[in-house]
């Protein structure tokens, strides 16, 4: 398994881990395809996170620009050992990520939810609309800089 992933990403076999590995955005779809054909066919979840800009300070040794992170979790349904595989993709502001709907039908609503709440765009998604919030909502509520008391239009 790890031997097949390493050449795809161009890294050492020892550096492949099944949790928390960061993958370039253009390898995201290829990695998901490889995992699906290797038996990781159970789609678990997609998690988008917004990271605000951090200036260099005593607590933050390296300045961090504003960016997004999309983590994907897949599972291999093996009797006796349900292995999971999770990887992360770092995105700049406005950068899209490939949608996995063509591989996993269940990615449809999950990606719509993350687009709705966090504001990450999924390229090649067949039906990218808001899922939870009303269609005319402004902003993406789960961003870190979206205050809870942001004024909004009353419910339709």
């Amino acid at each position: 398994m790890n031997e097949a992933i390493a050449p795809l990403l161009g890294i050492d076999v020892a550096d492949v881990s099944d949790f928390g590995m960061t993958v370039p955005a253009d390898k995201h779809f290829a990695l998901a395809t490889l995992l699906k054909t290797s038996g990781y066919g159970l789609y678990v979840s997609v998690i988008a996170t917004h990271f605000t800009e951090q200036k260099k300070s005593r607590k933050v040794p390296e300045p961090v620009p504003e960016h997004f992170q999309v983590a994907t979790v897949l599972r291999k349904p093996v009797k006796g050992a349900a292995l999971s595989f999770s990887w992360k993709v770092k995105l700049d502001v406005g950068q899209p990520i490939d949608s996995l709907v063509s591989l996993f039908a269940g990615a449809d609503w999950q990606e719509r939810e993350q687009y709705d709440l966090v504001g990450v765009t999924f390229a090649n998604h067949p039906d990218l609309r808001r899922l939870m919030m009303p269609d005319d909502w402004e902003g993406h509520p789960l961003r870190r800089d979206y205050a809870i008391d942001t004024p909004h239009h009353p419910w339709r």
Partner: protein
Amino acid sequence: MPLDAPEVPGMSGRALTPMFRPDPYLDLTDYEADADLMVLNLGPQHPSTHGVFRIKLVLDGEVIIKAVGYPGYLHRGVEKLCEKLTYSNITPIVDKNDYISPMINEQAVNMAFEAAAGIEVPRRGRWIRTLLAEIQRVASHLIAMGTFTLDIGGAIGGGASMFMWAFRDREMILDLFEDLSGCRFHYNTSCVGGQRHDITTGWEKRAVEVLSIIESRIPEYERFMSENPIFVARTRHIGVLSRDLALELGLGGPIGRASGVDVDLRRDAPYHCYDELDVRVPVMTAGDNEARFLVRVAEVKESIRLAKQLCEGVPEGPICGAKPNIGPATIKIKTGEVYVGVEGPRGELGHYLIAGGPGGKPTMPYRLKIRPPSLHALQCIPYLLPGNNLSDAIAILGSLDPVMGEVDR
């Protein structure tokens, strides 16, 4: 333990419809030009949607050709709220997500915090959690069985008798939990590190009595339902979900196991005390409404067996591995990222936690994503409904047993 649908004398059963995958993005202009289509709006305030869920149905005669689901009417922003609360304050909030099985919700979220903070739960704490989770699973599946019959409705005497029986049995379990934690629904009895309330003297004995009463009634329910020709006619070969589609949609749990996805995190990725138990997982291959019902019945029997076994030898020792959470900010996690999934009554209930990090606080999550099994279950709607009659839509929705509180969060 492979199960198969019991053969019912006098019922020949319907011919199995070929498994095809409907197109959820069907463009109606491509459909027959002279067809007289009707758009029917089901919900959001419809009693059969188990909460507030809206489905837009496109009908050709009485046959559904397209179904579009619209969740979000119960969206309360739980994930946003969790970013503003300390770790010990989150437990009572997640209780309200899956309000049919709150005990498993609060255990799942606390397991994620424990994994990130590196806190170990003592054996007695884990044992009690296992016991409570299994009893909660019985209560949750009873509700699923009862509401499913209510959805099928008139054919079996309104379905109300099974509904009432299920609620009567569940009430005994709620009484047990009330004795333990003081609350009927939203227990708040798990905390980071273990349990807040210890079981009292004689509680196990009462639990065994209650479980024995329920166990003795299960065959009666089974006879009432799965041997009833009308019930079989409404459920067998209706809403067939193939194994491939179940995997793609991310369905473990009773729905996936009714379609042949042989995965159960209690057996395959043991947490709590499940590695000390022999969990037998019922799996069926039919994938229709009836299989989903029968898998739930088999799981109730299995959970009762496990819970009785757990009542036997509760180990001695402490129940919490961390300092008592008296102040709101006693739990601190500097940085960390974990995904923890547990087997809820509806499938894999997961929590993805990003703690601390630049810009975050050590006392609050930076991001907490809840992976609700019901949201994945409802994604079946565009695939299962097309090709069926309108009356079957309600039965299929009932067999998925969604809880809208965790779908919308």
